[in-house]
């Protein structure tokens, strides 16, 4: 391979000459230590290289070695439960090599070369296969069956294939192409991260990705294959929300990218996920998870690469037919990494110093999500849902990353620091958030939740919106200005906020809510609302209605575990018996407080 020489070093950017045969996005090895770098600009015989490791100590004249291959990830058994840095170096292996601190110039392959996997073929010699077809399976762990696929764009007839115990680089068999060429079949695929993996076609999404978070599932649902963003100032709850989705969503595989965020948050996942039980499989959550951890103090260029590394892994599991959810926390740090590199390249800056291509890059990234018919000879579908958090400076949503993201995502979960200060969690603002998948998932709701679910949801949303208008009046002239019915509405809104929307991620009995429970809660809260209005017209005092003992039960209903959902029946009958007219009583002093926004 050709060798060049460094001319210039400026932070993570190195300029080298003499790499005339290399191509854009080729991987190179920089300096005596062979630090990983990638060519990101070529002018004449000069290549600009972003280096994935600390560049201190590099200087003009140091060698740069071409590899002729683009920055790629290794895909195959052994990815689950792993923790990688932004360029797929396994962090646990690096720790074994170099200790607690990340030193330069260390590396290890993304997939373990020694480990053996029990491979069971599903095809036989003589069968025709094409790219994406399943050759066989490896039970990677108790949860995930790893389907070994024919690499994209490869086609031919199976010559031989055998069950057995293999490493990821040993051939499990061979195929013969139409041209008569013999191709070795190994379990590992290598794929360039910046190139989307192929699929047959995208299909319109209709099934919600259930997350167990009520405000999301009921009010602003995400779909299998859908895209969402969570913008919010620090401390508003982006990371906790993303961790909740990683824990409780019904995706089969979870890719979590800690992109330029805190080291301790990664440690938290690493310590907690092996302990937590996946509600679907009963196995530890970590078994379905791949972590990409390029924290804020790790090299900035590798942070830029980390989202591509993550999404390529997600596509690979999608190609096996799985529903994958990928979380990027935070996409702003990725954008800032782009900005930093772009600044060093002395590119013409756009808004707030971000490169002019920020929007294109964000769109291209989110476009890699979706539900697809997998590229293969069979009928197989898989999906990648993407959830990106955005960290706008000062919480200002008009900044470029939020704005460019909103152009492409279909779900917007707006976090509000005011709600977070009141410890209303998740602090997702129900008035400004939206999901454009609402109508698409309604048929699924009707079939799988209840035919009334959508109507209940809309009714509650209308009550919350009305509350907001009325709160303005209360603020100006006081509660007395409201009619009795409006006062009941204010109470119901408070109940929706406190007894439904608020959900404590740190309480075992609250962190996950099934759709069934969500529907029952809505039904109960609305039943109280109607019965209160009815009882009031029959003469019950507002004070008595609001002090009805059943309200305590409604408030605690969200803590009912799945086995105890039958108790909703009792709550309903309590409502029926406690909310009755009891003659005329005009004492309408109110207990409503708080909640105006």
């Amino acid at each position, binding site marked *: 391979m050709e060798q060049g020489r460094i*001319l*210039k*070093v*400026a*932070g993570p950017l190195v*300029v080298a000459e003499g790499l005339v045969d290399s191509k854009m996005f080729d991987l190179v090895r920089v300096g005596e230590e062979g630090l990983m770098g990638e060519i990101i600009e070529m002018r004449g015989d000069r290549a600009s290289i972003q280096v994935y490791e*600390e560049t*201190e*100590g*590099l*200087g*003009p004249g140091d060698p740069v070695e071409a590899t002729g291959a683009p920055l790629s990830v290794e895909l195959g058994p052994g990815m689950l439960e792993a*923790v990688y840095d932004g360029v797929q170096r396994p*962090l*646990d292996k*690096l*720790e074994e090599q*170099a200790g*607690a*601190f*990340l030193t330069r110039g260390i590396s290890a392959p993304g997939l373990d070369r020694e480990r053996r996997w029990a491979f069971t073929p599903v095809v036989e010699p003589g069968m025709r296969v094409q790219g994406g077809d399943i050759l066989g399976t490896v039970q990677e762990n108790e949860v995930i069956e790893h389907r070994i696929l024919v690499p994209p764009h490869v086609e031919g007839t199976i010559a031989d294939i055998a069950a057995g115990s293999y490493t990821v680089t040993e051939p499990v068999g061979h195929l013969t192409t139409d041209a008569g060429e013999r191709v070795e079949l190994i379990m590992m695929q290598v794929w360039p991260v910046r190139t989307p993996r192929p699929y047959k076609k995208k299909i319109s999404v209709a099934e919600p990705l259930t997350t167990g978070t009520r405000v999301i599932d009921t009010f602003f649902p995400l779909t299998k294959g859908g895209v969402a963003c969570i913008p919010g*100032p*620090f*401390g508003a709850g982006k990371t906790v929300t993303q961790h909740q989705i990683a824990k409780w969503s019904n995706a089969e595989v979870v890719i979590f990218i800690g992109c*330029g965020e*805190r*080291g*301790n948050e*990664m*440690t*938290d996942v*690493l*310590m907690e996920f092996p302990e937590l039980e996946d509600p679907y499989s009963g196995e530890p959550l970590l078994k379905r998870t791949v972590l990409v*951890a390029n*924290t*804020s*103090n790790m090299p*900035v260029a590798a942070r830029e690469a980390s989202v591509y590394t993550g999404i390529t892994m997600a596509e690979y599991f999608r190609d096996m037919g799985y529903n994958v959810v990928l979380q990027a926390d935070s996409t702003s*740090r990725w954008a800032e990494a782009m*900005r*930093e590199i772009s*600044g060093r390249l002395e590119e013409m800056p756009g808004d*707030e*110093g971000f490169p002019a291509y920020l929007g294109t890059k964000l769109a291209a990234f989110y476009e890699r999500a979706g539900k697809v018919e997998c590229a293969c000879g069979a009928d197989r579908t898989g999906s990648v849902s993407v959830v990106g958090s955005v*960290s706008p*400076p*000062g*919480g*200002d949503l008009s900044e470029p990353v939020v704005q460019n993201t909103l152009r492409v995502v279909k779900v917007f979960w707006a976090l509000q620091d005011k709600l977070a*200060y*009141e*410890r209303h969690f998740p602090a997702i603002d129900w008035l400004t958030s939206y999901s454009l998948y609402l109508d698409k998932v309604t048929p699924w709701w009707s079939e799988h939740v209840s035919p009334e679910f959508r109507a209940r949801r809309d009714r509650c949303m209308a009550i919350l919106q009305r509350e907001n208008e009325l709160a303005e009046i209360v*603020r100006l*002239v*006081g*509660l007395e200005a409201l009619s009795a019915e409006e006062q009941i509405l204010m109470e119901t809104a408070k109940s929706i906020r406190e007894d439904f929307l608020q959900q404590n991620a*740190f309480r075992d009995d609250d962190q996950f809510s099934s759709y069934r429970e969500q529907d029952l809660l809505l039904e109960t809260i609305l039943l109280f609302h109607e019965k209160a209005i009815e009882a009031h017209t029959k003469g019950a005092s507002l004070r008595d209605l609001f002090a009805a003992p059943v309200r305590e039960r409604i408030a605690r209903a969200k803590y009912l575990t799945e086995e105890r959902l039958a108790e909703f029946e009792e709550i309903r009958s309590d409502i029926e018996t406690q909310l009755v007219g009891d003659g005329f009583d005009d004492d309408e*002093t109110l207990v409503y*407080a*708080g909640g105006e926004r």
Partner: protein
Amino acid sequence: MREYMTTRDIVGPLLLVESVMDVTYGELVELEFPDGTHSLGNVLEVNQDVALVQAFEGTRGSNPAHTKVRFLGRSLELGVSRDMLGRVFDGLGRPRDDGPEIIPEVRRSIYGQPINPTARDFPDDFIQTGVSAIDGLNPLVRGQKLPIFSGSGLPHNDLAAQVARQSAVLQRSDDPTKAGAPLEGEFAVVFAAMGITFEDADFFIDEFRNTSAIERAVLFLNLADDPAVERIATPRMALTAAEYLAYDCDMHVLVILTDMTYYCEALREVSAARKEVPGRRGYPGYLYTDLASIYERAGRVKGRKGSITQVPILSMPDDDKTHPIPDLTGYITEGQIVLDRNLHRRGVYPPVAVLPSLSRLKQKGIGPGKTREDHADLSNQLFGAYARGLQAKELAVILGEAALSDADKAFVAFADAFEDRFIAQGAHEDRSVEETLSIGWELVTLLPRSEVKRIKDEYVARYMTAEEGATA
């Protein structure tokens, strides 16, 4: 030695040196100016035979033709040793007191290396600071980075000194209803001053002296009249010393960095001199990454006994939390303690604004065994009640006290009492966490019983005495 007199340009703190050989990125440089003064510097960029050097101690007295530039072939290092304890250094790690030079055990690059996320141990040991607003609501844990967001004229120094003086880790308790006793352990304070006044620095030194904490403290001082660019190195000097004490000497180290605002301004000065495309308010686009390289050096490492806990102090320009410095800090640190000018005016010390303050590691640091079983519920209740009290107060301002419901009136009374009795305390008052919790419980009795919804009934029964319950 490679020495050159080939400086072409001097712009602010930067020198462009030509015809150099074998210079590397980040390399340490020694500059000798015509008037005989010296400055240390480092290489910010090297392009073929031209090096861009940042002079930590300024370029005053320099002249392109007569400045000697020596490239030292290593990066900026600090020689560390246990003997640093009790000593005062300047912003570049040279003794500033009358003591002897340190004979280093080892020399380390001040830039450190990132902790591998798999090697981190999660911070979950409660630190009792003796300050109710912190211990009760936003507890600090070992290995956390918890900044104080303050403003000019607010008593952040007093609070930081109080935390440094009183901090103690508690023994694990087998009884969920009792917190453990304070634990003796190897404890050190590393203090880095960046751009603060002599008087402010002196306050800390006095504090440490008076409590004889000075023997287990290491001080790095870059004061207001010291070279600004040196400040870029100062926190890294301090953290290099802290890492040595924590990971080589098994000590629990509290690092106080003050004032991060001046640090960021120094960074901005260099960035402006380089004519970089500025981010918000003229601060460089890489400010987040740069700050992270400081704050992320807090933590615990598996298999090592020591830890690094950081309490950075920053004064928010204009008390504005959305200013890039507090904003980016909050995005990196594990919470923030926000000081409030109105509380301060009303004489509440420490003037901690409870609602915007946050400790993200709270869940991990409290509860049975660590503090007490009722801690989490009680703090949620206090939070919620205080937030509602403040809301009701706002309402009363518009509509008049009379317009409030009875419940709201109770919340208003609660909010006032909460500020006076829970938040406010003496600068030398060291409250045990159990004392803090009992004050909390006394305040809960001011609320109507039906509003005490966030606390489990069994805790109400156990911790709210019958007598108190009756007055509710």
